[in-house]
Each structure stands twice: as structure tokens, then as C-alpha cells.
């Protein structure tokens, strides 16, 4: 579960940043996925605390973290950062999609009722309100970028600040988490955009995907290099901690870290994306490459979270022994729970889409 939590918040931060690239920096090419990315950030954000709650021994006391916070604890900030970010995302969605909600509210049925409630029963709209909405959304998206970074950098800090654990304790952890979050966010958008388009037989906007895959390439290079740097400096300095990290990496995490995370799921997407960004290819090929790379990078980030979290925990505190861990199928924090937790955001996303279309132009473009 503690693996899923940073993974999901990472998706939030990444998806949000993509939406902000459009809303704040006016990257027009990203328009086809802009609304979807915002909605994705929202649903993942809603479910981010779920794995934490499942992990708590006493989930019924969870609100103590906000009622009686101990400010010396990094974790105590979670409730506040999370809530303020959630409010911000909700507000931004509200302003970005107000027009669509109004359209929807004018219809009939349950959806219209929900839309009307969301709009607080104010269906008035003209050019002035639209402009105002747009401006407010832009400001919110602007504030949201540092907050998204804070939200996820903070998750990295939760690990990086534990001096008891040499596998975690590094100031770089925040930055590493942040970049891998952006990687996972862009990846999930590409992945999902293709799946949705394929199911609905829409035409994929290749320019948009090309741009995203370029971003993806850049961010993944930074993310992977940072992680390698971290490892290399530990190796080169040969501190007394290196001994235990060395055993950890070369024995216990060899398959999941060295082989899978780096050699398979980083190196292959790297070459794929490099080819995609540097060489000219037909839309079909380029799309296929982007999708494959994005899917692989999604796995890569999940593996990275796994290696960080589990790697840190299987190490004994005397640095001389290791335990092993693999989740059971039906345990409280087992695989089935993990799959359910991870599916829920997608279900919600679908419901959201039923309420207001997340890809409003896709159909038009396919028809054209």
C-alpha cells in the first residue's frame, strides 16, 4: 500500500502539470488532453489517501493528523497540503468546465441535476463570465504548479528525511520523486488517451502525442539520471553505508531494480522516445512508439516506488541482515486490494466523463 501511495500522488502531480502546461503556458498542442489531464489529477487525488488509510493500524483515528498535529513531524503536514491542493483542483475544474456543466445542466435527467447542483444552480453565462472563468482558471493553474510540486516533493521528503535508513536518507529524494512523478503523469495520459481513442474509434491527435512524448523523454532523462547519480555518488564515496546498499542492490533488489527498473523499463523507453523525438516517422509508427514507451514508463515508476519503499524496509536496522517481502494475494495490503485501489480512480474517471465529456473535440476531429 505504501508503494501505491507515492505512485498515485505522482500521477496526480504529473497529470496536473501537463494540464497546466496548456492552461498557463498556452501549449496549444496539448489541448486534446488538457481537460482530461485535469480530471485525471482530480480523481487520482481523491483516491491518494485510500492506500494510506488501509495501511493505518487505526484508520478510525486518521483525522487526529489534522486535529492534533505534531508539527515536528513531516507527516503531519499531509492533511493540510492534501486538503488545500484538493480544494484548488476542484476550484480549477469548476472554472475550466463551467461552460460544459451549463450545457449539461440544460438537459434533463440525473446528470443534469448533478450538474446543476455542482453549478450551485447558477446557469447564467455570457462572454464576460467566460472570460472571467478563463482568467481565474489560469491563476489557479499557476498556483497549482508549485503546489503539485510541493505535494509530491513532500512525499519524497517523507522518505528522504528518515536518517535511520541509508537507502532513503538523501535530500535528492524529493527531486527524484518529483521528476518521476511527472514521468508517470505524462505516461498515464498518453496511455489513457490511446486506450480511450481506440475504444471509441477516435482519431488520435498525433501532434499532441508527439509533443507529450518529447516532454516525456526529457523528464525521464532527468529522473533516471538523478537516480543513477544518487547511486553513483554513494558507490564512489564508499561510505560505510555503501556496504549495505551494495548488498541490497546487487542481491535483494537485483531483479526489480537493476534488471527491470533500469535495464528494461528505462533503457528501452529511452531509446524509443529518443528515436521518436529525433527521427521523423509516420504518425502510426510514432504513436505506437509513444504508447509503448509510456506504458513501459508507467511500469518503471511503479517499480521505482517499489524499490524505494520495499528496499528500505527489508533492510534490518543493524545493516547486517535482510528480510524479504512479497505481498500476498488476499492480505489487507495484498495484491487484490492494490488492484482494486488502483482501478477505482479509472471508474470514477469514466463517470466523470459521462457527466461532462473529457475529450470534447475528439469526435469532431474524427468526423472531419
Amino acid at each position, binding site marked *: 500500500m505504501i508503494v501505491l501511495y507515492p505512485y498515485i500522488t505522482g500521477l496526480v502531480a504529473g497529470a496536473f502539470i501537463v494540464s497546466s502546461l496548456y492552461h498557463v503556458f498556452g501549449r496549444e498542442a496539448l489541448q486534446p488532453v488538457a481537460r482530461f489531464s485535469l480530471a485525471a489529477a482530480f480523481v487520482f487525488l481523491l483516491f491518494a489517501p485510500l492506500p494510506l488509510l488501509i495501511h493505518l493500524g487505526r484508520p478510525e483515528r486518521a483525522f487526529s493528523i489534522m486535529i492534533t498535529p505534531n508539527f515536528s513531524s513531516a*507527516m503531519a503536514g499531509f492533511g493540510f497540503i492534501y486538503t488545500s491542493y484538493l480544494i484548488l483542483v476542484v476550484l480549477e475544474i469548476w472554472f475550466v468546465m463551467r461552460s460544459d456543466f451549463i450545457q449539461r445542466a440544460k438537459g434533463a435527467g440525473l446528470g443534469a441535476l448533478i450538474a446543476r447542483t455542482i453549478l450551485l444552480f447558477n446557469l447564467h453565462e455570457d462572454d464576460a463570465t467566460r472570460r472571467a472563468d478563463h482568467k481565474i482558471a489560469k491563476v489557479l493553474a499557476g498556483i497549482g504548479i508549485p503546489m503539485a510540486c510541493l505535494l509530491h516533493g513532500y512525499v519524497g521528503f517523507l522518505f528522504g528525511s528518515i536518517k535511520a535508513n541509508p537507502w532513503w536518507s538523501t535530500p535528492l529524494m524529493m527531486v527524484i520523486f518529483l521528476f518521476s512523478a511527472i514521468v508517470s503523469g505524462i505516461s498515464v495520459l498518453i496511455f489513457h488517451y490511446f486506450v480511450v481513442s481506440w475504444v471509441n474509434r477516435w482519431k488520435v491527435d498525433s501532434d499532441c502525442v508527439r509533443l507529450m512524448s518529447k516532454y516525456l523523454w526529457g523528464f525521464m532523462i532527468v529522473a533516471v539520471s538523478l537516480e543513477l547519480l544518487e547511486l553513483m555518488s554513494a558507490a564512489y564515496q564508499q561510505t560505510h553505508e555503501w556496504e549495505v546498499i551494495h548488498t541490497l542492490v546487487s542481491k535483494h533488489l537485483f531483479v526489480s531494480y537493476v534488471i527491470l527498473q533500469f535495464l528494461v523499463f528505462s533503457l528501452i523507453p529511452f531509446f524509443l522516445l529518443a528515436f521518436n523525438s529525433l527521427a521523423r516517422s509516420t504518425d502510426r509508427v510514432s504513436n505506437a512508439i509513444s504508447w509503448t514507451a509510456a506504458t513501459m514508463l508507467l511500469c518503471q515508476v511503479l517499480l521505482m516506488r517499489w524499490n524505494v519503499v520495499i528496499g528500505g524496509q527489508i533492510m534490518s536496522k543493524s545493516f*547486517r*541482515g535482510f528480510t524479504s517481502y512479497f505481498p500476498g494475494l488476499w492480505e489487507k495490503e495484498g495484491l487484490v486490494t492494490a488492484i482494486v485501489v488502483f482501478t477505482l480512480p479509472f471508474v470514477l474517471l469514466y463517470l466523470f466523463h459521462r457527466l461532462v465529456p473529457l475529450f470534447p473535440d475528439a469526435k469532431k476531429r474524427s468526423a472531419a
Partner: protein
Amino acid sequence: MTRRRDDIALRETEASFSRRDLLKLLASGSALLLVHCGPVPPPPGEKRGASYDWTKHYWVYVVDISKCIGCCACMRACRAENDVPEGYHRTWIERYRIRKDGEVLIDVAQTGEHVFAEVKDEVERAYFVPKICNHCTASPCTQVCPVGASYQTKDGVVLVDDKACVGCGYCVQACPYGTRYLHPTTRVADKCTLCYHRITRGEKPACVAMCPTGARMFGDLKNPDDPITRLLKDTRTRFIKAELGTKPKCHYIGLDEEVI
């Protein structure tokens, strides 16, 4: 203090509701919240002696490694005294064996009977190291606890309030000495309390009382006549992982380089 503010807030709700009143109410509400924030005060939950004054004591623990014979009587005493669940430890003994080529072998007593398995290989040196919570003065576990359920008492003991702990396990990860665990039935963090219920009645912790060789010692630094105070005055001691800046309170006499 809290009560007074409560009254103010109440009186204001009773008054007629202008916008200004609402603002005032919000302001006093947030002040109320602030008063409530911060670590929860130590609960009366941990049973202590009736007339105990925690400002008059400061407890320390001393382990003399050369005296430990690895009999594990302390571990069994601790389990009996504190209902430690099987498979978990509040205190344990590590056996260090250093081979001729410098390789260090470490093992702990088997669970169940809590005795060391017999070994026959040739080693250069061997010794036992008793370990417990160090009741660190700059304790990372209390620092990271999001709800202040882990806290330090005025007499220098680190305790967990099992009524407040949310069971997040962050302290378990933050403790560099691996002395904490999540209790399988209460689902909250658990660890050595220095037998707080005993020491506040003037008794020694169970492990100290049971140690047949006196390898484990315990005393009050605020009492000048306590043998511990005198011992620490003229004995050189070391701490485990002192470089982490946790300022442990468990002194070790004869601690070797290999012990981490």
C-alpha cells in the same frame, strides 16, 4: 485557557449574527484550533506510582557488555512483565562472533524458548550485546510521529500513547535502532517503556531486576547517591550509532567497533 476561549465562542454564537460576528467567530474558532494543536500532553494511561513526581527524576540505562553471558533471562522477564507478543521484542540480545578473517557473524536468540542456538565454528572473539530502546534525547521517533502519540516524559523516558497512536508505523521506520514494532492486536506502535509502571513505584525495570550478572543497570541521574550516578562519573561509556545525533540514554561499557 481552552475553556475560556470556548466560552467566548459560545457567547458569540448566541449574539445576533451580523457579518462581523461571523468573522469574529471564525477568528476565535481558529484560535481554539491552535490551542488544541501541538503534541498531546502525556496521558495518565501509563500506570504510575501514586505519589510520583516526574520532575524529580531522570532515568538512565547502562549496559556492561563484558558481563552479559547471553542467558536471555532479561528477554523472558520482559515478555512476562509486558505481555510482548510472540515474534516481537522490546529487548533482545545479539551475539557477535568475529572470525579470523574479520567477518562478523551476528545472530539473535531463537524465538519461543529465547535461548541461543549452539554453534561450534572457530572464531577469534565473541560477545553478547543487549539492546533496548535508547530513550533518545533527540529521538527521531517522537519527531516524526504525526499526532504526537510518541512523546518524551520529563524524566527522560520515551513512551507511546496507545490511545492516540494512529498506527502509521512512521516511527518504526524512523527509529535507527529497530526497537519499535506495530503490535499485532492493538495495531499501535509498541516498544520498551523502561517498565514505566515499575520505575515510578521505585522498582527496577524487569530486565534489570532479572539479570543474574548485573550486566544491565539502571538508575536516576538526579539522585547523587544512586550508584549509577557515581558509575557514570568515572567510567567511559559509548553509545550505539551516536553519529546520527539521536543522543541516546542507554550507555554501553566496553562497546566494540563492530556493533551497529
